[in-house]
């Protein structure tokens, strides 16, 4: 196990060492201490390694992650796991706004709450939030799944494309073109798998499903009031 103390080394030193794992994998387990809210911790990783960050992380932690398994033992700032491609990112605490923004793949688990715009423009990632999410979450979400065990804020799924959204609690309001949909058996199975992958003990039958009404997929003047 390799420990990097950010009180003694820079984020640049850390990321450089983690990037080198792609071509020269000598250490699979990494621990980061004293992150102290630094930005851009463990970004652009592309190796089958685990990184445990003990403390709070700033903006864009785990950004564009591929393959790696990153855990923040604290809170994460804006844009955690943005544009993630694969791997697993787990936040033990809360996540700020735009968690998992535009992420293309992998699994993002937020054990606390997530702020506004969680999963904005997501493109294939699976996001599981044990707590609640803020307003405008999943705005223009394209594909993947968003699971919320708590409540969702205003305008959930505005201008949604093909993301599957599952919410256990209340939804303050749905965004344009987002509707509640029937929870069929395949959706129960999908949700069950997502909860298991995330290690969350919830009953899939307690959730409601939301998705796109697909009325804004092509411009129609009759929908002008929705734009």
């Amino acid at each position: 196990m390799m420990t990097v103390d950010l009180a003694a080394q820079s984020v640049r030193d850390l990321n450089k060492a983690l990037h080198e794992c792609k071509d020269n994998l000598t250490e699979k387990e990494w621990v980061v201490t004293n992150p102290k809210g630094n930005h851009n911790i463990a970004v652009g990783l592309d190796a089958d390694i685990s990184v445990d960050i003990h403390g709070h992380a700033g903006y864009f932690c785990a950004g564009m992650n591929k393959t790696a398994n990153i855990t923040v033992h604290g809170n994460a700032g804006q844009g955690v796991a943005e544009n993630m491609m694969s791997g697993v990112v787990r936040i033990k605490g809360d996540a700020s706004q735009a968690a998992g923004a535009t992420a293309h793949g992998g699994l993002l688990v937020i054990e606390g709450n997530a702020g506004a715009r969680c999963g904005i423009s997501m493109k294939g990632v699976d996001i599981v939030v044990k707590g609640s999410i803020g307003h405008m979450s999943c705005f223009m979400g394209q594909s993947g799944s968003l699971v919320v065990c708590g409540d969702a804020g205003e305008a959930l799924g505005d201008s949604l494309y093909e993301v599957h959204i599952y919410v256990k609690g209340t939804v303050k309001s749905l965004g344009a073109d987002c509707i509640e949909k029937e929870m069929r058996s395949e959706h129960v199975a999908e949700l069950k798998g997502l909860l298991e992958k995330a290690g969350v003990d919830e009953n899939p039958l307690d959730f409601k499903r939301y998705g796109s009404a697909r009325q804004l997929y092509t411009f129609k003047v009759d929908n002008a009031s929705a734009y």
Partner: protein
Amino acid sequence: MSNDTNNNPSLKESATFDRATMAEIRRAANTGIYDIRGFGAKRKVPHFDDLLFLGASMSRYPLEGYRETCNTSVILGDRFAKKPIKLDIPVTIAGMSFGALSANAKEALGRGASIVGTSTTTGDGGMTPEERGQSSKLVYQYLPSRYGMNPDDLRKADAIEVVLGQGAKPGGGGMLLGQKITDRVAQMRNLPKGIDQRSACRHPDWTGPDDLAIKIQELREITDWEVPIYIKVGATRTYYDVKLAVKAGADVIVVDGMQGGTAATQDVFIEHVGIPTMAAIPQAVQALQEMGMHRKVQLIVSGGIRNGADVAKCMALGADAVAIGTAALVALGCNDPKWDEDYKAIGSAAGFYDDYQEGKDPAGISTQDPELMKRLDPVEAGRRLANYLRVLTLEAQTLARACGKNDLRNLEPEDLVALTVESAAMARVPLAGTNWIPGQRF
């Protein structure tokens, strides 16, 4: 205004409600939707034609046009990047997306740019192998939609351009209509085939210049500080935008004036938002100079560049390089008269075609139709673009030598005068024959 079609001089056309205006009112009344089109602003605005060079005579010493060198190379992004970009000519190809353009067109742009040692730029939709393979220097755009964005392509890029806006539609997002969404385009953008694809107007994971500074740091970290980071803005509040971009950590700033083209947006946006390229350059240069960053953070300008005189005038006003989009497409064959019958068949004409959003381009450039795409040979089109880029460079060198400059970047505002009061005020050079710069003291 007389009516020339009816040959009746007593008929008077309204300057306010002319025939084009009335036609647009009728179109709006018939359809209930605003007009979407490609190309750039078509209205007449103060432009580089309103500026003239003061060639050398007694008080200045010219260089011999064919025997004395005039450097055209420029290095971009040497502020922080380990690997700045060296361009052999100060004319680059602006960002245009695969999706809006055919794969053959993107390949041709790469080929033409590479022949003359300059860069080309991806667009909204990601990086194609054709483009990367044929572009010796490729700038990867980082856009609000993040269509096709991935760290592997990011690391293949020679520079990264964070796009905040473009001159044709500052403050607006984009739209790729469903008819251009083929299987390949849909797959690259993670969206279903055949539906309209909206591009957001704001980045999804940061707001404001302080956040942008952190975002730029993230991009540098992911790419191990190897490549330059550009910031592109549409020309509006250019003085302030440039200052904020420098503060956020940009290596290079791209300012796109209102004459810059687009693949598709509302006509009202194209014609009524932003400021002319000529008006934006002095604002950008002033901001850089006040921060002590002129020539340290390089300035690329675009929007309506057509010939070597435009290139030289931009550089005289303080730009380090220019970017071309519309002119590059014309060099490839866009709006070529040889397709006039086909243009007429779809309700347009060669020289007027701007419905890039419909995907029916007879020239095979702004289309995803396999049959139309075959009309554009990327090798031949790339050669045409290279020829055109050479002419731009030779023309700019001709003017620079006439002003006594052995480097295009030695051109300066003092070499210019303006033909109109408006252009003098915008470009901040004297009205020809006077020492008067409107808005400034004598």
